[in-house]
């Protein structure tokens, strides 16, 4: 480095002495600074407003993402169910289905199913099962009520037979 400095001094002296060329005072120091300012981007100090250890920050971030994802998923799931129910209602409320459902039995169901489009078949099946179960449940409830009302009117000696018979009929049917 010292050799280099001496070499540079000699070159500068030679140009001044032989060619009469001058330079401003401290020119090379200022020029060096200008060049460095142009090429070297100063490293910005990171100003952290909020900092957590990675051991804590990563699981926390993952939990937040999971919670958000679950919220969205559950919302979507609810929407799908609502949509399915709406579709079921739509189908069961159509004139065709109302006619078909007016007198439910297995043969009617098979015939009426022929008139339903393939794409709506699943929904139609669901509606059929729901209606069937609801009606049956309603009917059996009514029958049980009837049994108890009738039992009040029948003599005590016959009550056991009547209840047994009615219950058996109700359960078997």
């Amino acid at each position, binding site marked *: 480095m010292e050799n280099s400095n001496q070499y540079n001094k000699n*070159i500068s002296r030679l140009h001044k002495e032989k060619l009469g060329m001058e330079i401003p005072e401290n020119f090379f120091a200022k020029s060096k600074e200008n060049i460095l300012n142009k090429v070297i981007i100063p490293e910005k100090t990171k100003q952290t407003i909020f900092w957590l250890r990675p051991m804590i920050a990563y699981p926390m971030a993952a939990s937040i993402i999971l919670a958000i994802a679950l919220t969205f998923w559950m919302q979507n799931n609810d929407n799908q169910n609502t949509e399915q129910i709406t579709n079921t209602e739509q189908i069961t409320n159509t004139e065709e289905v109302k006619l078909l459902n007016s007198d439910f039995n297995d043969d009617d169901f098979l015939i009426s199913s022929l008139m339903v489009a393939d794409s709506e078949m699943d929904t139609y099946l669901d509606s059929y099962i729901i209606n069937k179960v609801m009606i049956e449940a309603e009917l059996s409830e009514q029958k049980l009520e009837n049994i108890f009302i009738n039992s009040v009117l029948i003599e005590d000696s016959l009550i056991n037979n009547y209840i047994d018979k009615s219950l058996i009929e109700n359960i078997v049917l």
Partner: protein
Amino acid sequence: MNQEVELIKHLKNPKLKNQAFKDLLDLYQERLYWHIRKIVITHDNANDVLQETFIRIFNGINNFEEKSSLHTWMYRIAYNESIRFLDKNKIKTTVSIEQDNNAYIKNLTEDSFFNGNELQLKLNEAISELSTKQKRVFHMKYFDDLSFHDISEILNISENTLKSSYYSAVKTIEEKILAQC
């Protein structure tokens, strides 16, 4: 030479590049300035070209294939930048300081950082009358103290041609100065 190899290694290492570039400036800024100054003549122009040269060196160091020495590569960049500057200036003024001796001397004497006496001015005049090639060779050999091998790499001219040009230039300058005295 070993110092150059080490410097190149550091310049190509992103972590060490900035410090290595500062060292490079300390080593070569002054030499390259004078090399440029003799081509573009005025201090202000030399300053502009010097900055452009080092910016190019900084940005292009990763493309340096080490086929030549580092200092030869830098001198070539400085030389090319100076010629580019002169070409740009020629378009603006339509006068070339390389071909027009009067323009050369006018630029020199009008520069506020020229403080030459009569003898120094005569030497400048004698140099200005040389052909462009002779002028370049004389400057690089006599003032920049470069070897013929290095000049050959920078100007892409054979060493023998350079030697011939240089000795011819020295003889012409001597004759002109002696004739004026």
